[in-house]
């Protein structure tokens, strides 16, 4: 019996120009767009139907939100740099940039944790109002996606990095795929920040 070799696992299929995981992650992101799209639609529908709606700036901390936005954008840049480093066969620089990406993600979560505890301290819970409900649900789900990204990137930075020695092309592909996911997580935040923090109430 011959060994099973799934084709186009590493190299691109000529007529589609894609390797399997790249197509797979784009499909996954399409479903993620539908997930967050549905939640944003829920936001719109609830807001339109509401009699009054809180102004985010009066409840949330815009400076902290801005810092977090900048941190996530920075982490996206370092993510690209880590992939580019592998493309240039510089593994040490890859470790550096991937480590910075991880650090940014952790700092984001820590700041988010401070924001959450401040809300709880002021007795603002998901059950307080529809605005608080959607704030905690959307940022909570986004936070879970950040944690998912930390797990994947942490694996690729630490125990999974050994693949660079055995299958460098395949490892570079993995970083590219993880990067696509990470950019998506950042992009969601770029939509969340103005929607929740900046839009005026009514």
């Amino acid at each position: 019996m011959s060994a099973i070799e799934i084709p186009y696992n590493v190299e691109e299929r000529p007529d589609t120009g894609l390797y399997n995981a790249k197509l797979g992650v784009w499909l996954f992101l399409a479903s993620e767009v539908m997930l967050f799209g549905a939640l944003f639609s829920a936001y719109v529908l609830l807001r339109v139907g509401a009699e009054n709606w809180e102004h985010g700036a009066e409840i949330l901390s815009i400076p902290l939100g801005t810092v977090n936005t900048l941190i996530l954008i920075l982490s996206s840049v370092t993510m690209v740099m880590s992939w580019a480093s592998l493309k240039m066969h510089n593994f040490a620089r890859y470790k550096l940039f991937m480590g910075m990406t991880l650090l940014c993600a952790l700092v984001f979560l820590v700041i988010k944790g401070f924001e959450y505890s401040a809300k709880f301290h002021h007795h603002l819970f998901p059950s307080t109002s529809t605005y608080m409900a959607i704030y905690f649900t959307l940022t909570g789900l986004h936070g879970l996606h950040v944690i998912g990204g930390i797990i994947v990137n942490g694996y690729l930075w630490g125990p999974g990095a050994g693949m660079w020695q055995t299958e460098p092309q395949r490892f570079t592909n993995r970083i590219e795929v993880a990067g696509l996911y990470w950019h998506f997580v950042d992009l969601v935040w770029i939509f969340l920040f103005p929607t929740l923090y900046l839009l005026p109430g009514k």
Partner: protein
Amino acid sequence: MTEARHHEAHHDDLPFWRRYIFSTDHKVIGIQYGLTSLCFLFFGFCLVMMMRWQLAYPGQPMPWIGKWFGESRMPGGVMAPEFYNQLGAMHGTIMVFLGIVPLAVGAFGNYLVPLQIGAQDMAFPKLNMMSYWVYFCGGVIMLASFFVPAGSAQSGWTSYAPLSVITEPGNTLLRGQTMWLIGMVFLITSSLLGSVNFITTIIQLRAKGLTFMRLPFFVWAQLVTAFLLLLAFPPLEAAGVLQLMDRVAGTSFFLPSGLVVSGKPWVASGGGSALLWQHLFWFLAHPEVYVLILPAMGIVAEVIANNTRKPLWGYNSMVWAVLILGFLSFIVWAHHMFLTGMGTAISSFFQTTTMLISIPSIVILTALILSLWGGSIRFTVPMLFALAFLPMFGIGGLTGLPLGLATSDIQLHDTYYVIGHFHYVVAPGTIFAMFAGIYHWYPKVTGRKLNATLGRIHFWGSLLFINGIFMPMFIQGMAGVSRRLYDGGASYLHAQHVLGLNRMMSVSAWCLALFQIPFVINFFWSLWKGRKTEENPWDATTLEWATPTPPPHGNFATIPTVHRGPYEYSLPGSETHKDFYPQWEPDHVAKARA
């Protein structure tokens, strides 16, 4: 990874639990899906057979088994209303999400798609294994919900808010509705993993020469189905998360202000929208209807082409129709909501799109019927089921038109007419197609044929009694009998003249169960005693018949090259007893053989 490949290379040497339980082989996973989902289908059928006792003989103790269920569910052997609601909600949920979809996509899709496109396995074998086990966990959670205090979910398979939020509240996870939501999150995750895998496999792993317009129609149906699962399920996941927050964290996404329950104001911040749940739910659940029917159409197309010994009539138009169907299925959802007061302008839009989507459905059905024209039909058991699919799906589809028009829907909404309509689509429609598929591909999976006599008994009995269940529902529905009555309408004056039909439907349901016995016997008996078959017992043309029987790990001895379209039967000039040109035979071999 090289180590993993090394392991896969010696699949036969793997320990039992890696070969048959945590296997990454798409065929083993397909069989796992198939057996699990057939068990769930039977279980869901049992739930509704119990409901049918209550509908036919309301308030009478259930003979023999009534006393098994305890005083809370069946006091004195008489079904409690809450238990009736649980059975109804879980029948729908189990049949759709744990029965038909895993059977049509998980089982048939997993087993056949890699074979039909000439691949050795799916693109992501480990993801495939994970998809099955996540589905399995979702199923276990759903079943376990029967045993928590106050029982399983009881707000219907649609879980309409605010009813679903206020039923048995409490911020513990051990509540039927809460477990339903968690179970759904598992099932949605499973189908997400599966659909990513299917689409990648079909696009990336097609064999040399297998262009898109040479794909068997079954593969096209699976491709469109996978896109529907990929894009329609996440909004339900979002809705599930919101409802979970409502139930556990005390939010009010679906609870409007000023809600009064049992005469007391409901304590919540309010300001939510009950309609929001319906929009999010039906945004999934209408494409879901096409998830249920498209793989069935794919199976029927394969069986019909093979047994009429003719190419499918209008293959190209069927492919385009299925693509258009997939697209349109995303913009018809609110035709389930004409009575919610969402306004005439929105209703007009959705009834227009609903009329539009009937066009590609009719194109596919017409093409399948015209494919019969002039064929020398072999009335094998799979062909009988496939032939029955055509009028049964036709009835299901055409009775849907009055429901898609707001004016007539106002009369028919929430009556037994609706139940009759969608059961004609999924029960004698999809389930018959699934049986056609089981009888058709059983020889490939096991190397033995199912017994044809038992198969014919199974078919004719099922056909008779399944119509005995669902045809009277149209009559009751047009008389205005609501679908949600615990006593089947006995306490309503307008239902009195159609009450007798309840007993006919219930007896038909129990007889339908009896006629599944020959199938179960056949299924197991033929594993050991069925007539042995060679690689291609049906003289078929698609690639799954090019493999050894049963296909080994890795499927093909040599990866095939595809030379022609999928249904080249009875070409002019070929002899009648060798009337087919398989996709994998080069021209000179095919010509020499003919």
